[in-house]
């Protein structure tokens, strides 16, 4: 499923500072429709910050993000959703007192999906939420809340989907299952960026990875190649592997 089409997302030279700390320090990469791109790196390397900048939660202090040819600078998050960008959260953030069905209904109604939005029943079925559809989201376990977070994003029919540690905390069977779902979404033409610590999972689903350290890209390519690069091994896998 190696993508041939032009990138839909271009991140160029993006800088994000928090006080004196450079969370992103000239980060550049791109992602094409149908591609699954992995963002990997040690804690604090800027992966989630990158997702927060692309999804409009943070305004970058420098550089530019363009989506579908248009700059995203200063565009409010809900407008980015309407343009076709959506994401999940590392710690899922459902509307706790609303039922699962109501959670999804908000996104279906307000997501302004460019194409016909998916069906509520199909989403509930495909992401194993049908049994809990009428329960408050607060009653869901962590894995179910993550699925609800994903479905909330999918209900807006994104063309670019950012997954922030979706797999963390899932059991092996759930991991295999969600990996297949993500691949199927990409085959449908969605550009997907995956932030993840589980290397097996990343290797299994991504076409390409960006290895980040201290807010910069230090490697771009296949994960299998990345693990041979001494600099990557040093900063990412830890000193003991470098020997």
């Amino acid at each position: 499923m190696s993508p041939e089409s032009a990138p839909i997302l271009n991140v160029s030279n993006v800088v994000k500072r928090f006080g004196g700390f450079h969370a992103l320090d000239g980060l550049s990469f791109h992602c094409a429709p149908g591609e699954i791109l992995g963002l990997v790196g040690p804690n604090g390397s800027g992966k989630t910050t990158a997702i927060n900048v692309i999804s409009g939660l943070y305004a970058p202090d420098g550089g530019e993000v363009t989506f579908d040819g248009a700059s995203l600078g200063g565009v409010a998050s809900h407008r980015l959703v309407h343009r076709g960008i959506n994401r999940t959260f590392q710690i899922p953030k459902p509307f706790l007192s609303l039922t699962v069905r109501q959670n999804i209904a908000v996104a279906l109604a307000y997501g302004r999906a460019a194409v016909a939005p998916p069906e509520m029943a199909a989403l509930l079925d495909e992401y194993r939420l049908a049994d809990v559809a009428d329960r408050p989201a607060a009653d869901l376990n962590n894995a179910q809340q993550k699925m609800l977070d994903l479905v909330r994003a999918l209900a807006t029919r994104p063309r670019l989907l950012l997954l922030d540690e979706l797999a963390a905390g899932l059991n092996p069977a759930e991991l295999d299952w969600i990996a297949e779902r993500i691949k199927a979404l990409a085959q449908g033409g969605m550009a997907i960026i995956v932030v993840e610590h589980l290397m097996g999972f990343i290797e299994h689903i991504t076409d390409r990875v960006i290895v980040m350290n201290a807010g910069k890209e230090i490697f771009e390519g296949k994960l299998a190649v990345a693990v041979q690069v001494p600099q990557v091994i040093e900063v990412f896998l830890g000193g003991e592997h470098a020997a």
Partner: protein
Amino acid sequence: MPSAFKHTLFIVAPLLAVFAVLPGVYENHLLLFNFVIFLILAQGVNIIYGFTGYLPFGYVGFFGAGAYGFAILVMHYQAPAVIAVLAAGLVGVALGLLLTPLLRLSGAYFAIANLAASLAVLHFVANPALENITRGPYGVSLTGTFNPTLAYSAALAVLALTLGAVVFLKNSGFGLALQAVREDAVSASMAGVNVVRMRVIAWLASALVAGLAGGVYAWYVSVFYPDNVFSGDFSIFAIVFALFGGVATISGPIVGVIILYGIYNLIGFTTPQYFQLIYGLLIMGLVLFLPAGLVSLATRRGWHVP
């Protein structure tokens, strides 16, 4: 039967009917009028607090501004009372627009800033330098429009409008989106909801409700001072009644007003020495055991409460 229709038929219509009939059989009309006013204000608090999470400690600011909006139109422009009530609503909305920057704050910061804003409006209105416009601290007397019967009917109309708004919020995608914003603003924006716009709409709607209530209050009482219509009791009572019953429902604030304002009038007059004690215990018990209000007795059992 669609649930909005059910809520109107089984909650809104009976309540309005009871308060339309009661003046014919019960003599204390002022008490009935005050019940209607608090039903309106508690639902106004419900709109902004129940559906968006902003606790309006200075809610009386809109009420007082509405009362003075009514008074100024009647005193200086000889406006008919009904027009002046509508203008009172608009004055509430105008003050709401002026205060929209407060929505950037959250939690206690918002509550305190809102309280300060209502005090600022009080002192603005009560300023002796504005005697020619507001009569300053000397109060207004609107004998020309005095008509308690019509004013009571107008209050019922405002209550109907307010309940209609809450029924809409309870049964619409718009109301659901507002609750989503209350639960998690970031996730709501990621569901495509324009968070700022939703908050402003709810804020202005609750300001409109309080402004209209202030207008009919001014019409009913006809003579009042700034301290009367900007009394912090209005904010506190409306908030406590709404919370006691349970917000983000239609019935909760109604139950809260009937029970608490009922008790207030029963024991407040007969045995005032026990009133503060009983009231205090009730509210402490609520906060400790039923933070989501009386309706949570039912929702905990899995019952749906409209």
